[in-house]
């Protein structure tokens, strides 16, 4: 009987989703588009996204590349600029543009090493994890100098996919390739994910004791430490580590990560304060919407509306849920309190992305839905991956 009602509720929720999609389709184009009627030539219609460095210089490089498209050094320089921009602004359009810079190389066998590595990196950015790993393995199978960078990227891709054993193997190759610090941090990260918190913490602490490391490296290690404590349920230690990391290098990633921690700790007002000056990327806006809703902040309504509009716009691409599954699940859960929809999205998301946050969102959605099978699925998947996360344990 319960199984039957579960099926019925799933059918009903599917039907609702289909209905919603039909409604969206029936609306002529996007309802969010409003006409612009400029009144003078000086009126600014649009502001272009910031560029890394000088705009004229960026254009000069691009023009040069159009004239000599097979100049690998130039293509890589252009691609790297775009990738930096994609990271800074959280804007995947630039990853696409970087992809086009290396487009003249189509044949895997003859593609220069650096171009192949760039392609793998871009594929990773675009969440094409299997393709990225395949590119990296192709590069690593080539004879030549040791390739610590490629191994480290492969370790990261495998970790994101929840394939820790393969990630370990790649981490060890980073050491063989001569980058001891990164290899140790890489292995410690995997240890921490598996719940071997004490050994992982000892490694990070030892690596941080070397004060010759540049601040950016120390910030990265400290953020790893903060995440470890967060997953282990040590709120105070996590708090201290996040603060320390932000002091070393206040980058956008750490700010977001800390905001998630603050939201988890039911301190939404502080999360809002943390993010209010960040560029409003989708990830930032999502947290503003969630924290604003929870804190009942005056800004919440407009942030929620804007995020909802962005999701609707992104979903005009039929495959959008593949790339935005995590964010959309978080929004459905925390803002709309729509457990069934969140569960659907979270399930789709973990098919490709399996970082702790992805599993945590799946677990939360499963718990909120009250479906025994969903809770069981989240438990089983967490177990299969080998992830040990006290936050997940507490709700499953």
């Amino acid at each position, binding site marked *: 009987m319960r199984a039957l009602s579960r099926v019925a509720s799933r059918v009903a929720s599917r039907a609702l989703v289909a209905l919603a*999609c039909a409604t969206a389709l029936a609306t002529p184009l996007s309802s*969010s588009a*409003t006409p612009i*009627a400029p009144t003078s*030539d000086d009126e*600014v219609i649009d502001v272009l996204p910031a560029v890394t460095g000088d705009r004229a210089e960026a254009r000069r490089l691009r023009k040069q590349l159009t004239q000599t498209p097979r100049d690998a050094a130039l293509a890589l320089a252009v691609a790297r600029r775009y990738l930096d921009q994609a990271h800074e602004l959280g804007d995947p*359009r630039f990853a696409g543009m970087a992809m086009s810079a290396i487009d003249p190389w189509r044949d895997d066998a003859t593609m220069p090493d650096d171009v192949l590595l760039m392609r793998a990196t871009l594929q990773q950015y675009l969440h094409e994890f299997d393709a990225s790993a395949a590119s990296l393995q192709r590069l690593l199978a080539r004879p030549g100098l040791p390739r610590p960078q490629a191994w*480290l990227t492969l370790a990261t891709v495998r970790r994101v996919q929840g394939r820790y054993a393969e990630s370990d193997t790649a981490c060890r190759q980073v050491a063989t390739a001569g980058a001891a610090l990164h290899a140790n941090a890489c292995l410690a990260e995997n240890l921490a994910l598996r719940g071997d918190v004490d050994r992982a913490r000892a490694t990070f602490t030892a690596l941080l004791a070397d004060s010759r490391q540049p601040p950016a490296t120390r910030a990265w290690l400290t953020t790893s430490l903060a995440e470890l404590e967060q997953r282990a349920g040590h709120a105070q230690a996590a708090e201290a580590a996040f603060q320390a990391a932000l002091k070393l290098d206040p980058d956008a990633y750490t700010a977001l990560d800390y905001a998630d921690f603050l939201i988890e700790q039911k301190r939404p007002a502080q999360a809002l304060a943390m993010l209010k000056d960040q560029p409003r990327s989708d990830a930032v806006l999502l947290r503003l919407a969630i924290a604003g809703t929870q804190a009942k902040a005056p800004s919440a309504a407009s942030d929620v509306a804007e995020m909802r509009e962005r999701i609707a*716009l992104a979903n005009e*691409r039929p495959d959008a849920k593949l790339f935005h599954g995590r964010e959309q699940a978080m929004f459905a859960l925390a803002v709309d309190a729509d457990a069934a929809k969140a569960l659907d999205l979270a399930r789709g998301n973990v098919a490709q992305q399996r970082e702790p946050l992805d599993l945590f969102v799946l677990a939360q959605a499963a718990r909120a839905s009250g479906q025994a099978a969903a809770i069981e699925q989240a438990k089983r998947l967490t177990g299969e991956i080998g992830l040990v996360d006290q936050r997940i344990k507490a709700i499953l």
Partner: protein
Amino acid sequence: MKAQLVRWLLGAALLVFGGLAQAHKASDSYLQVDAGAKGTTVRWDIALRDLDAALDIDTNEDGKLTWGEVKTAWPRIEAYALPRLKIEGCALRPTGQALERRNDGAYAVMMLASDCVLKSAPVITYSLFREIDPTHRGIAKVQLAGQPLSLTMLDPSRGGAAPTAGAASAGAPEHIAPSGALGFLREGIRHILTGYDHVLFLLCLLLPSVMRRTPQGWRPVEKLSQAVWPVVGIVSAFTVAHSITLGLAALKLVSLPPSFIEPAIAVTIILAALDNVWPIFPVPRVVVTFFFGLIHGFGFAGVLGELNLPPAQFAWALLEFNVGLELGQLMIVVCVTALLFMLRERTHYRGWVVRGGSYAAILVGMLWLIERTANVSLMPF
């Protein structure tokens, strides 16, 4: 060397962070194709920031696009965009321009029109921004008169023609694969499910399948297996036969005019229904089904011609379309056979279902025959 290695590795470390920050909308353009009785209009929205990447609209390089800059660049925008969109059979001419604001920035809006009249989902060839951003897509909404809105993703890096997913219903956009992959499979399923003449022909053949012919007339079968084997035989004969002619016609080896095929299909229905009431065929039904199946195959091929199969993947598309037909046919056969088997013992089965159904089929077949030979419209479908 060491310093460079550290920078590289730091880059790698930063990549871990990519996952969280990435969630902005990718580059899309929006196409609204409205096919009317007198002509076709297209509204095409393209992001100004994407156009700037291709055309350097921001002439003073201050990072701001003013109305003056956009206005000056408009002829270049049209000259760049228009050759990168082709709707088969339609010569598009610009008829108007506008600007609009969307969530992710300002868009140039181009109004286009053509005198072409689209009867079925057109082939759209799309290569906008192919050299700028291979992840760019065109999102096309195609509205044909009296049909549900269909949604298609156009992938410029595929270069070739993308058939629009005419079969996709508005209710299930998530099932539309990029650029209409498996589109012909759906087209095949749709064609058999909405091709009432093929369905009716199948029904006529199936009606008596839960009965067997005895010297005393039709008698219900005792076991399901007695019904299943004749059904399998008939369906296989129909499938093999229409696959043969569909293939021959699609490869342009044999061609028969629709003016002959369409009435002939109506005749097959009349004859099959007649045989249910009075045995008229001198040979087993399987043999008859095979010959009639050959005729229906030409009917399917007619639709295939309208679909404009891409020559590059011709064989594949043909296979997809045929597999779609068979899937749709299987759905009908399974449902109908199960239903008829349950009803077969009812006292009135023979009288009402077999006889009544067959008479109705004969009537419809006759009307179709008249419609298709006299070229008049008698029925709503």
